[in-house]
């Protein structure tokens, strides 16, 4: 597994654990009513399991498994720098959205969430830019 995929997948695994932990706290509250503040975690729970876990895992596995390109006789996974930027922007975006989502009374919440979403959008655009040429028939050149 390439290094970029290791980072994507291990980060996704951490988000899986955290996302399930937040979900369990919310469900515990739903049953027992003992943790009323757990509802504040709902937007973070959704962000973490959908983007942090599911999307990030898909990106990490796609980087690993998509057909490689052949450039100057060498096999390569293409635009690796774009993938590192994608990793950084995606996780920065998720963290900003998660933290901002919990500060419901803050006046900077809306702009912070928008900033986080922009970072996430840039991340997926960069990833798509990297992946586009790798989606090709088996044995086809660049």
């Amino acid at each position, binding site marked *: 597994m390439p290094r970029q995929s*290791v980072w994507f*997948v*291990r980060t996704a695994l951490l988000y899986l654990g955290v996302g399930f932990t937040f979900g369990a706290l919310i469900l515990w509250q739903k049953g027992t009513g003992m943790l009323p503040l757990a509802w504040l975690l709902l937007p973070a729970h959704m962000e973490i399991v959908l983007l942090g876990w599911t999307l990030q895992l898909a990106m990490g596995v796609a980087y690993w498994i998509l057909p490689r390109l052949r450039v100057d006789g060498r096999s390569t996974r293409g635009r690796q720098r774009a993938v590192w930027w994608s990793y950084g922007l995606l996780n920065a975006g998720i963290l900003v959205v998660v933290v901002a989502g919990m500060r419901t009374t803050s006046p900077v919440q809306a702009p912070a969430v928008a900033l986080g979403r922009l970072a996430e959008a840039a991340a997926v655009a960069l990833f798509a830019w990297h992946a586009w040429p790798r989606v090709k028939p088996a044995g086809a050149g660049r």
Partner: protein
Amino acid sequence: MPTLTRWYLKSALVWLAAAGIVGAAAALSPLLRLPPVLTALRPVYVHVLMVGWVTQLIFGIAHWMFPKPDAARAERGERLGWLTWLTVNAGLALRVLAEPVAAGHPGGAAAWFLALSAVLQLLAGWLFVAATWPRVRSR
């Protein structure tokens, strides 16, 4: 395909079918004047789809396709994998049964089954992390 993967994938398919039924029941509830307790099925529907189907499909494929662990870790990973399968399915099944009942009778026994479901699914998440982490590595 490893036995555990087959169990994950077949369970995922069962949950996918269940999601269709639960989603339809939740949508039809107000139209057909079904018991209002079925409204509580909406969050259940999302979780049956996302945990029962999507997450469990991922668990099964990851167990099959990720780089194989070394011999010393393989047995431990297999044990953790079976525990993950058991806890994720037991936790989700408990939620499906308990959530509509708990919505209709807050504070009853069903509420504590919801709490137990939370603990089981929490365990499932971290067990999968523990089973998979050593297999995610560079060559």
